[in-house]
C-alpha cells in the first residue's frame, strides 16, 4: 500500500509542476493586463501604467523567462502574485475555493449518490418502467446545457415567488447580506439560497452517473459470479446488489473523482447565474481582464484538483476492488 501510494504521489507531483508552469507561461503569453488601464478614458500616463505593471510582475515588455522565474519563486512559497488592480491572488483564490465548495459540495454528493442509486435500481429493473423513464429523463437533462438548467430553475423560482407572493426560494447569492437573526434563521436563509444551485449541480450529475452506473451494472449482470449467485437461488436483484454493485463501483469511483475535479471548472454557469463568487467565475472574469496571475492560479488549482482526485480515486479503487491490490 505504501509503495503503491508513494509511486503514485511522485508521478502526480511531477505532473502538477508541469501543468502549473504551462498554465503560467500560456497565460503570460496570451493575456495582456495593460488594456485595463489603456481602456480608461482618458488613459493614465504611460509611465504610471508601466510602473504599476512592473510592480505586479505583469509587464509584457519584461522577458517571459524573467516573469516566470519571479512568479515561480513566489508560488513555491504559496504566493500566487497580484492581480492587475493590486489585489492578492492567493487570498482571493482561497476565498473563492471556499465559496465554490459551499456551492458544489452538497450538489456533487447528491449527484453521485443519487446517480449510483438510480442507476443500480434501473439496472435491477432492466427494461422496466423506472428504467425506461430514467433513461429518457437522463438523456434530456444530459443534452441540456448547464446554463439553460440554471436559468430555467431560476425563472421557475421567480415565478413561484411571484405567484405565491412569498420569498420561499432565493434566486441569487449565498445568504441575505446583513440579515440579523438567530442561528436558525441564518441556516434557513442559507438553505433557501442553496436549494436552486444544488439542484442545478445535482441534476446533470444524477443523469450522468445513473447512465454510467446502469450500464456497468448490466455488464455485471452477465458476469460469472452474478450468474453463480443466481444459480444458488438468489433473486436477480439481490444477486446484482450483493455481488454486482461492489465491482461496478470501482470504475464509478474513478469516474466520480475526475468528474468532481472538473465540476469546479464547469460550475462557472451556476456561479454566474446565481451570483456566487466562486472559482469558475474568477477564471472567466480574469480571462476577460487579461489577469495573468489570477488565470494561472485558477489553472494551478484545477490541476491540483485533477491530480488529487486521480490519487483519491486510485486509493478508492484500491479499497473497493481487491483485484487492483494484486498489482
Amino acid at each position: 500500500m505504501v509503495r503503491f501510494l508513494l509511486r503514485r504521489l511522485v508521478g502526480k507531483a511531477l505532473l502538477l509542476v508541469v501543468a502549473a508552469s504551462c498554465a503560467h507561461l500560456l497565460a503570460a503569453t496570451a493575456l495582456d493586463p495593460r488594456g485595463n488601464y489603456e481602456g480608461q478614458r482618458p488613459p493614465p500616463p504611460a509611465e504610471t501604467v508601466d510602473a504599476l505593471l512592473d510592480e505586479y510582475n505583469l509587464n509584457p515588455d519584461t522577458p517571459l523567462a524573467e516573469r516566470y522565474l519571479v512568479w515561480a519563486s513566489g508560488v513555491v512559497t504559496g504566493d500566487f502574485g497580484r492581480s492587475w488592480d493590486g489585489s492578492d491572488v492567493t487570498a482571493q483564490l482561497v476565498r473563492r475555493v471556499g465559496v465554490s465548495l459551499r456551492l458544489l459540495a452538497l450538489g456533487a454528493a447528491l449527484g453521485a449518490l443519487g446517480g449510483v442509486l438510480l442507476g443500480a435500481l434501473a439496472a435491477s429493473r432492466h427494461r422496466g418502467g423506472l428504467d425506461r423513464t430514467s433513461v429518457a429523463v437522463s438523456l434530456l437533462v444530459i443534452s441540456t446545457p448547464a446554463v439553460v438548467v440554471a436559468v430555467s430553475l431560476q425563472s421557475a423560482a421567480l415565478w413561484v415567488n411571484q405567484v405565491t407572493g412569498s420569498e420561499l426560494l432565493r434566486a441569487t447569492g449565498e445568504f441575505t447580506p446583513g440579515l440579523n437573526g438567530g442561528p436558525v434563521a441564518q441556516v434557513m436563509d442559507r438553505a433557501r439560497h442553496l436549494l436552486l444551485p444544488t439542484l442545478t449541480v445535482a441534476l446533470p450529475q444524477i443523469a450522468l452517473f445513473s447512465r454510467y452506473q446502469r450500464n456497468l451494472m448490466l455488464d455485471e449482470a452477465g458476469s460469472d459470479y452474478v450468474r453463480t449467485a443466481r444459480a444458488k437461488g438468489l433473486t436477480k436483484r439481490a444477486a446484482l446488489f450483493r455481488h454486482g454493485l461492489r465491482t461496478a463501483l470501482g470504475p464509478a469511483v474513478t469516474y466520480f473523482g475526475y468528474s468532481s475535479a472538473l465540476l469546479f471548472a464547469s460550475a462557472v454557469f451556476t456561479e454566474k447565474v446565481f451570483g456566487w463568487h466562486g472559482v469558475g467565475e474568477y477564471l472567466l472574469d480574469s480571462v476577460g481582464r487579461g489577469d495573468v496571475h489570477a488565470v494561472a492560479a485558477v489553472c494551478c488549482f484545477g490541476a491540483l484538483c485533477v491530480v488529487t482526485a486521480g490519487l483519491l480515486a486510485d486509493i478508492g479503487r484500491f479499497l473497493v476492488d481487491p483485484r487492483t491490490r494484486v498489482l
Partner: protein
Amino acid sequence: MALVVALSGCDSQVPGPPLVDPAALPSAEINPVERGQLADGGTLRWGINELPAQWNPHHPAGNLSTVSTVLRGLLPAPFHIDETGRAHPDPDYVTDVQVVTDPTQVVTLTLEPRARWSTGAPITWRDYAAMVDALSGSDPDYQVLGEVGYSRIADVRAGADDHEVVITFDEPFADYAALFQNLLPADYSADPEAFNSGYLDRIPVTAGPFALDAIDPSAQTVTLARDDSWWGEPAKLDRIVFRSLSPDALDAAFLDGGIDVYAVAVDAASYQRVKTASGGEVRAALAPDYRHITLNGQSPALSDVDVRHAVFLGIDREAIANSAFSAIDWPSSVLGNHFLAPNQKGYVDNSGKWGTYDPERAAELLDGAGWRAPEPGAVRTRQGQSLTLRFLVPQGFAPAQNEAELVQAMLAEIGIEVRIEAVPGDQLFGGYVLPGDYDMVAFVNSGGGFPASEFLYQWSNAVTTPDGQDKWGSNVARIGSPEIDGALAGALEELEPDAALRRLNEADRLLWEAGHTLPLYQRPELVATRTDLANVGASGFGGLDYADIGYTTDDGASAGAP
C-alpha cells in the same frame, strides 16, 4: 434644437417614432420627496457590477464608476454637481467660495468647521494642499490618473485659520469646481506609499453621512452604516449594502427582492425583464454621456476631410438612435454637439451642414475627392485602391455589432465598403484605437459636467517630440488644429460662464468642420428601484445626496430592515 425638430418633420424614410426635442426629456428622475416625509431607518441593497480592490478614486486601478458610487456616501467634495452639470458649493463641507481673477486666479474656500474625518481630525487646508501635491503629477512616485487642473495650481495655503483654503493658480482654470471631488485625508495623500496602497482592499478614513461598516470579499458586499458623528442632516437609511453581481444576476436579484436599486444596462432584454417587477419600477432620465463614431484622421482613406464629411452625411443617425432605443421605451433624438448635452445650459446644435443624412451630397463629396464608382452601386475606387473602412467592435457586445451593421448598410449605399472587425474588448483601446490601427470605432463619452477639462485629451492637437514625431496621446481621431486648441484653452481659462460656453461652442463648430468624430445620441440612464424609495434613481450629471435617500412608507423601511 429647432433644427432637430425640423429634421424629424421632413424625413419620411426613417421608420420608428418621430424624434423628440431632447430638452423636453427629464434630466433626472429620482422620486424627490422632502426628508420630513420619509420614514426613518431601513436598509437599501444596491446592486453594483464589481467589487473593486483599489478604493482610491485617484489611482489608475480605482478609476471605476463603482468606486465613485460607493464613495459618494463616504468622502467629501467641496462642490455638489446638479442634474444638468452645474456646480454648487456643498454646505456640508464648504460654507463660502470666493474667486478672484486679478492678477491671477485665486479660489478661497471657507470650510465647514465642524467637518471631521472618521479619525476625529478636522478637515483643513492641509488635506487640500496634500491632495494637490499628490495629483499634480510632479512626484512620479504617486500613481495617479493624470486629472486635468491640479498642475495649474501654484500653491495652496491657509487663510485666516486652518479652515480657510487659499488656492492660487498659475494659469486660470474655469473648472475649479471639478477639483477635490472625493477629497482624501492628508495622511493618505502626503505619502506616496499610503496614497498607492492605503485604500487597497479597504476604505480606512471617511467623512460623510455614512461610514464604512464592512467589506465582505467572499459575498462581495460593502456595507455602509449611518455615521452618528456626521455634522449635517443625518442619513435617513440605517444602512446601504452594495452587492456585486454579474449583469444577468442583477436582473434576477432585483426581481427576487435581493437588491432594491441598480443601474440597468441599456439593453432590451434586461429592460423588458425588469420593468415587470412587482413593487419596482425603472426610472429613466438623460444620461451624462453620449455615443459617437470616431474616424481615424490618419488612415489612408480618411485623411481627406471630404471623405470624413461624406461618412458623416452617409450615416443616418436617426435610424441608429431608433434602433438603439426601440425596445426600451425611450424617445430617440440625435446630438449636435461634442461637449454639451441638449439639457445643459449653452447647448447649441453646431452640426450645421454635416449633421443631416444626405447620401446624394455624400456621393458628390466622394466624387470630388476622386473616389469614383466603376458602376452604380459598386465600391468606389481611386488609383486602384478601393474605398474600404475597418469598423472595430468589441467582441460579444451585440448592440455594437448591430450598430456597425447598420452603418455598414448605410455606407454601402454611397459606395463605401465597411468591414466589421470584432476584437477582444480589453484590447480595443490599447491594441487598436490608441496606436491608430483602425478606421472607425464607436464608443461612449461619459462626463461629469466639466466638458472642457474632462475631454481636453480627446480633442487636443498632437505634440511634436524633439525627434520630429507627432504624439497624439489620447486624441484617437488624430485630427487637430491650433484653432481648436485655442478655443478649448479659452474655454478652460474663461471664468465668466457665458463666455466659456461661447468658446466651447466655437471649439465644437471647428470639430464639426474638421470632421472629427460624429456624435450620435445622448443615452438614457436607466435605474431600477423599488417604487417606495425616494431621492434615488437616474440622477443625470448630478450626484445623489445619500443622506436623503429613504423609504416613503414605514413598510418599506421595515421590509428592508432586519
